[in-house]
């Protein structure tokens, strides 16, 4: 009755051998292809570096002005614009400017990459049930796997630093944009699609004129979620050498520096709110045509 009280697990030797084999396989893979990946990701690294440089080395009043302008253009709201300026001023006053800029750079680049990759994948998913049934479980894994876990292969493959951090952040942040693009495409009114077909739209015209514009509010909700996920991941990514607000938080955890942790945490909250309100206001403005309803 031993098997009844104790789970009949694989015996330890075989399990160790299995783990070793997988590790060895992956290590060989990284040795063989690590350089290839690194070279392939060189443009990303360059872009990341440029954005970070731009944000950290430009004079701070110009940076605040630029952010205020973007917030105004996106939201057309004085409240949100003022909120952006005040938040950034406070962050600067508490001497977290450089770290914040690095975090924003990372978030922006990760979000842009997630959009560039995620929207086409979402469109494919929205158009084909087969693609959807293949991708859905993968997205489930990406969203539920503890984020620390996929830092491991990324580090093995690319070492530590900005780019592996960026990849880890992007992998964590991309599912919402894929899912919501898929959802948006699928929710487009069938009658309107039929009308587009009846007028002889090609697939591309259908996508460009009907599906994308009508899915856009949903896609924007996905972009918003992606930004939030990217910000949440920034702290975790600091464990593999990503600079920014995450690093002081990590230090604060290790040394029980309560105030340091709270200040940097609040700075993350501050930029999260900036990104969230601005992108949501922009998404709402895209739906202007829905606002005025015939009475």
């Amino acid at each position, binding site marked *: 009755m031993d098997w009844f009280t104790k789970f009949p697990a694989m015996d330890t030797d075989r399990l160790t051998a299995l783990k070793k084999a997988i590790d060895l396989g992956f290590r060989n893979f990284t040795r063989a292809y690590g350089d290839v990946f690194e070279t392939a990701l060189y443009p990303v690294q360059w872009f990341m570096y440029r954005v970070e440089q731009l944000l950290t080395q430009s004079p701070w009043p110009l940076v605040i002005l630029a952010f205020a302008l973007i917030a105004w253009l996106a939201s057309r709201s004085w409240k949100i614009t003022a909120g952006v300026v005040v938040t950034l001023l406070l962050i600067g006053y508490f001497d977290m400017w450089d770290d914040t800029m690095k975090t924003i750079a990372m978030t922006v680049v990760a979000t842009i990459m997630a959009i560039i990759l995620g929207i086409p994948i979402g469109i494919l998913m929205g158009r084909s049930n087969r693609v959807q049934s293949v991708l859905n479980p993968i997205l489930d894994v990406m969203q539920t796997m503890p984020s620390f876990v996929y830092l491991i292969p990324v580090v093995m493959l690319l070492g530590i630093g900005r780019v592996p951090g960026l990849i880890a952040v992007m992998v964590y942040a991309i599912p919402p944009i894929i899912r919501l693009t898929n959802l948006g495409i699928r929710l487009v009114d069938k009658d309107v699609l039929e*009308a587009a077909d009846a007028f002889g739209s090609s697939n591309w015209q259908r996508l460009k004129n009907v599906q994308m514009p009508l899915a856009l509010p949903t896609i924007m909700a996905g972009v918003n979620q992606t930004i939030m996920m990217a910000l949440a991941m920034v702290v975790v990514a600091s464990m593999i050498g990503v600079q920014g607000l995450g690093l002081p938080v990590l230090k604060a955890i290790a040394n029980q520096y309560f105030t340091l942790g709270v200040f940097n945490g609040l700075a993350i909250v501050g930029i999260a709110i900036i990104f969230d309100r601005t992108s949501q206001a922009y998404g709402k403005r895209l739906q202007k045509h*829905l606002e005025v309803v015939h009475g």
Partner: protein
Amino acid sequence: MAEQNSGIGISIRNLYKIFGSNPEDYIDAVKGGMTKAELNEKHNHVLGLKDINIDMPGGGIQVVMGLSGSGKSTLIRHINRLIDPTAGEVIVGDEDVVKMNEAQLREFRRHKTAMVFQKFALLPHRTVLENAVYGLEIQGLPREEQEKQARRWISRVGLDGFEDNYPNQLSGGMQQRVGLARALTNDAPILLMDEAFSALDPLIRMDMQSVLLDLQKEIRKTVVFITHDLDEALRLGDRIAILRDGEVVQQGTKQEIVLRPADEYISSFVREVNRGRVISVDMVMAPLSGEPKGMPIKTGTVLEVAAKRMTDSNVPEAHVTDASGTVIGKLAINEVISAMVTPVDHESAAA
């Protein structure tokens, strides 16, 4: 333009549509006489259309009438192949739509047909003008030309000044005017109208019917109009086909339908019709014998109008004249009135 005046005829031949996972497997059985109920119960396939044969002459309004579930919306979608048939031919002009490949079909939809939908199906993120140009935009015409055409039709359907409004800002009737303008801007010889006015309230529906009849005098397109409303069918249709359970039960001119309903189903519809407004004097006049008496009445005049004019001038008899003024028959007031009030059922019509 010359082509438009004569219009492109549509001829539907032996059209079958079976809905389900393997429609081809049952087409022979259906052709051999399997009923809709049997197909549904035993094989879990739905017989949408069964052996449809309709010839729609170019430049006229063909109405397809039927209650919900009769297959009329399925039928109209076969004309531009939004739905693929299981068997049969749809000849438009001299081409079989069923045999077209994807590129040909797209060209056909762009240049030969335009469609108006029951639920309008406008693009909500585009203004009235941007909706109206849609067909021409798809065709790749220069923007100036698109807008010139679109503005003309927007104005023609009575939406001047609303070009920059979004569909949501308009009432249902106005939205359907946009739908109509979008279809007309496409300048296609065939206009497909799928219950185009069914979602509108009665007064606005009448109004839109007038707009369509008015326009049709000018554009002479081949119009296929789907409706579940017999009054609408009689008002608009040059020819009417009546569908039930995916089969054509009767087709012909409106007078033929009203005077000689093919079966009990159609008689039950026809009974409610204001016959005085549908039947023309030509159907009741007797051959002329001797001198024409009373007042002249033009051929094509409906009974109601004839009766009113005869009673107004207090004459018991009149004669019918054709367009050139030649006398073609005589008319007695009692026959006019009896034709207006006698409900016809299919048995007495056959007698």
